[in-house]
């Protein structure tokens, strides 16, 4: 029992320079710092230390860093982890070295299925929950026929596959899809194909820059004006901000978090804004929540022994400005309520960051894949 090496070390491993740096990046580090400071800087009388590094979205860098942190820095918990490759690699090393990893940005459901780990937590969202929340809702409001623009890699495929399944489950149909290479700058060809398909909804199973480019160019080719709807499967606040309301208005998507949802979220987000100059994305808020939850668990368990901490966390209810009705499941999935949001019209927006309105709150157990559906070997069925 007690604190090993007399210090609790938390590592934030995130994308500081690559395509996801706006989503996580320095903001995630700031969020983690805030969490530690708010916790008092100490747990069980021992100092909490934060280290951070850039995984550049490269699995090898993430794995090297995680290994080094585990071997030489004696890190207790690693969070951040913005893409699935990095998250998988770190979770793997965590398993080997008994270091807890809490992925806040990666989407892949494999983290809690084939590759689930006793020390791995998937905290914010996954490629099952997002489409389930968004896809179903959109079909229900009349978007019956779909055409997908899919980023051609595992993450995109998985988003597309899951969304298609929900679309069909709600009585919609999928007219076709086109797979575009990751980091495409010109979507016009694909958009024309989507347009030609006549589908009501063009589902964007991609993220970040690809998403932004696709939306912008859809507007250029008059797709939305032509009566088709664009639906993003993974959209961050920063994406909406960078697109501008003019372009993004009316779009529906799913998110785990929106700053302007209630008093608690507003209060924290404003503090965050004061430090960083932008409102938090769901990842950044997720990092804060994850660090706080972890520290609470240590306090409760009275030790930073990873097995004990994991056990304690599994028994906790996680409720804070980020997580509503959250709880950590045996497969590592942190199940919490999700939201369906809509981008405001420019006329509705009163402030620079007044971008979204929450349409619907979806209970976690409804949004996330059930344990029974999953394939985690640690779950006894």
């Amino acid at each position, binding site marked *: 029992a007690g604190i090993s090496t007399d210090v609790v070390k938390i590592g934030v491993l995130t994308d500081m*320079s*690559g*395509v*996801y*740096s*706006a*989503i996580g990046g320095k903001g995630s580090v700031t969020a983690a710092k805030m969490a530690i400071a708010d916790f008092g800087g100490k747990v069980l009388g021992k100092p909490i230390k934060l280290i951070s590094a850039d995984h550049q979205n490269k699995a090898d860098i993430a794995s090297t860093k995680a290994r080094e942190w585990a071997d030489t820095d004696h890190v207790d918990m690693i969070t951040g982890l913005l893409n699935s490759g990095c998250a998988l690699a770190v979770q793997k090393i965590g398993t080997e070295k008994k270091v807890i990893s809490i992925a806040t940005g990666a989407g892949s459901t494999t983290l809690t299925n084939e590759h689930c780990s006793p020390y791995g937590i998937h905290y914010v969202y996954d490629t099952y929950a997002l489409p389930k929340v968004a896809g179903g809702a959109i079909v229900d409001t009349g978007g019956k026929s779909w055409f997908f623009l899919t980023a*051609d890699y595992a993450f995109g495929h998985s988003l597309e596959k899951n969304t298609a399944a929900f679309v069909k489950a709600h009585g919609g149909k999928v007219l*076709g899809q*086109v*797979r*575009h*290479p990751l*980091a*495409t*700058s*010109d979507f*016009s*060809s*694909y958009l*024309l*194909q989507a347009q*030609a398909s006549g589908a009501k909804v063009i589902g964007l199973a991609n993220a*970040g*820059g690809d998403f*932004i*480019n696709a939306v*912008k*160019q859809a507007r*250029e*080719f*008059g797709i939305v004006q032509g009566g088709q709807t664009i639906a993003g499967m993974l959209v961050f606040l*920063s*994406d909406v901000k*960078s*697109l*501008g309301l003019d*372009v993004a208005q009316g779009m529906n998507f799913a998110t785990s978090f929106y700053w302007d949802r209630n008093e608690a979220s507003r209060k924290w987000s404003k503090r965050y804004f004061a430090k960083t100059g932008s409102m938090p994305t769901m990842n950044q808020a997720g990092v804060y929540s994850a660090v706080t939850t972890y520290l609470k668990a240590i306090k409760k368990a009275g030790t930073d022994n990873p097995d004990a901490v994991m056990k304690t966390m599994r028994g906790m209810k996680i409720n804070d400005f980020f997580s509503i009705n959250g709880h950590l499941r045996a497969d590592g999935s942190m199940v919490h309520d999700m939201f369906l949001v809509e981008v405001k019209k420019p006329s509705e927006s009163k402030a620079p960051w007044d971008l979204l309105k929450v349409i619907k709150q979806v209970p976690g157990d409804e949004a996330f894949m059930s344990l029974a559906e999953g394939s985690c070997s640690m779950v006894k069925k």
Partner: protein
Amino acid sequence: MHLSYQVVLAQLMLGLNIGAFYAILSLGLAVIFGLLNIINFAHGALYMLGAFVALLGYNELGPLLGMPDFHMNYWTALLVAPLVVGSLGVLIEKTMLRRLYKVDHLYGLLLTFGLALILQGVFTNYFNVSGISYNGKPEILRGAVNLKFMMFPTYRLWSIAISLAVCFATWFVIERTKLGSYLRAGTENPSLVQAFGINVPLMITLTYGFGVGMAAFAGVVAAPIYSVSPIMGSELIITVFAVVVIGGMGSIMGSICTGLSLGMLEGLTKVIYPPAANTVIFFMMILVLLVKPEGLFGKEQ
């Protein structure tokens, strides 16, 4: 996907749009290569810089000057960005590249590779890599033109037209004027051309400035279409290299034609087999290398 002739035509138009960028970039590379014997790896980064000059001019310059409502407009950017980047090019040439002419050309490649990393790194540090929208598209270029087989955004039509105009003007100057013959001669034996009374160092400096200015120009033209991001040039440049290899470094016209036709090839691929869109040019390159190792327009060594 059903391949009607409309679809094919539409995709060819879009391909032409990409091709125009390939052409103007590979042409810039060819011009620089011609006189400095340097493959300008920084070309992509300078293209990005051009787009950023337009973007920052539109978004930030006003506030910076204390005039929040001031936006540097698109037309000004079209002029200013090449000038700014061209001047940076002049500086780079005068302080760095100049010292490398006597050594193996590979060092030029390496130096500009380093510069590309620096530029990209600095911008990545301050700007969002997932891209920022440029909102300065001028009013008259908004909307779309009916081309019978498709509605084509006016701006894209303009971007094709202006890029081609720049390409052909460059071609004319180099192949058909006296200045061009100085350039071509300077390529081979600068010190002798100098001995004939021509200010070669100045010519070299200006050529580099002009070449990178062209990249910046392409950047401004691209800004309203794509998101402006620090990494917008880094992948593009490698494709442009492949274009250059396929075309053969020898000729200016070669760069233009190859750029355009490869753009169209890429456009078609996007309908036929989209996943290969980013790579079709590289496969094309292998094919060309097997059949005509010196490139389509290249001369045998």
